[in-house]
């Protein structure tokens, strides 16, 4: 349904507030929430149906099985996050400002709904071998977004792939907080994450300067 380029709808594609009426969306939202709460292994189709208030027949018209539904929910959520990041990154201002805006949106996106953050980052590994490809594709999408709008005047970071280091820094930091159950405090880490993601591009002095901005 949502393709990678789609604009975000509301604050969260799958959050309670903006849940669309369609049964598919209700099922995807339910799959994400039940899996986040119980873990993938313990989640059954019956759990998802109960949470979504949708019948079994409808479920199997839309999805082959539990795995397909959970993977579709994951894809939808990732699309939503990528869309939010893209809009922030393509906003107005100097490159450093745009980066800060992007990081702010990223951290707030996770803090707005910790359960969904957990579903996005922690649960896929339990789903099965698809996880590897999903993880890699997600990583590449963020790198592509950042690479699409780099400032022409950035210092040479050769031989380091600065974008990949920056995306890796952001994922590692957010993952660490989400896994530790501290998702809600993520927005307070903006200065720290600004430094960690910009230092591969800008060097110590300029990254510290960017991080110190109010």
């Amino acid at each position: 349904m949502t393709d990678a380029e789609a604009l975000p709808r509301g604050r969260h594609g799958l959050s309670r507030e903006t849940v669309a009426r369609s049964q598919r969306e209700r099922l995807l939202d339910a799959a994400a929430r039940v899996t986040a709460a119980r873990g993938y292994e313990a989640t059954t189709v019956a759990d998802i149906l109960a949470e979504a208030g949708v019948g079994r027949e409808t479920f199997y018209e839309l999805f082959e099985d539990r795995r397909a539904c959970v993977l579709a929910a994951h894809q939808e959520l990732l699309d939503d996050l990528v869309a939010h990041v893209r809009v922030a990154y393509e906003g107005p201002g100097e490159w450093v400002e745009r980066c800060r805006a992007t990081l702010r949106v990223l951290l707030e996106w996770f803090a707005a709904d910790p359960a969904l953050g957990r579903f996005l980052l922690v649960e896929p590994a339990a789903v099965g071998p698809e996880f590897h490809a999903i993880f890699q594709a997600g990583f590449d999408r963020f790198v592509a977004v950042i690479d699409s709008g780099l400032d022409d005047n950035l210092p040479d970071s050769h031989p380091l792939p600065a974008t990949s280091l920056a995306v890796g820094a952001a994922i590692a930091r957010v993952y660490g907080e989400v896994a530790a159950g501290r998702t809600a405090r993520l927005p307070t880490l903006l200065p720290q994450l600004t430094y960690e993601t910009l230092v591969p591009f800008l060097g110590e002095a300029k990254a510290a300067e960017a991080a110190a901005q109010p």
Partner: protein
Amino acid sequence: MVASCAEKTYAGTTIADVVSRASVSRTTFYKLFNDKRDCFDAAATLCVDRIVETVATAAAGHDSPAEATRSGAAAMLALLAAEPELALVLSGDVVGVDPGLVERYSAFTVPALEAIWESDGAPPAKHLSPGLAFGRAQLLVFHEVTAGRPERLPALLPDIVYLAIAPFAGHDEALRQARAAGVGVAR
């Protein structure tokens, strides 16, 4: 266990897979391990031990912390390029089975890096969190392995050197060392 997890992930692995690959009986399996998770933990620990040993051997006997780090990093990448299943299990499955395990394994690495700097008399200044650098290095390695390019792992040397040095000596010095490490590395 390692081979099966690398191919089908932990979730997709059954005890039947493990015993058939290992050519041992189910009875033997249960004599050695309580369950699948118990066997996985033992396998993951074995993977970590191999990496730690390889890095420690390579890092010993160097004059400067930067050299020791570079040598250790190169040895680790060579090991993972030859046996990518180690990286798949440690970076992929461990995360899914129990995120707490990752912290336990990073706890092997970080003190080892700190010791390299302390033995040189340099105070381990914390420019960036070493734990975070560990996570980022893990992501980079994992990224190459899941992309089916384990043979390109040695080309990550500048990145890994950067990540291992930046927490202690800062970005600017780490970039200098990464550039030095990148000489002669095909990317």
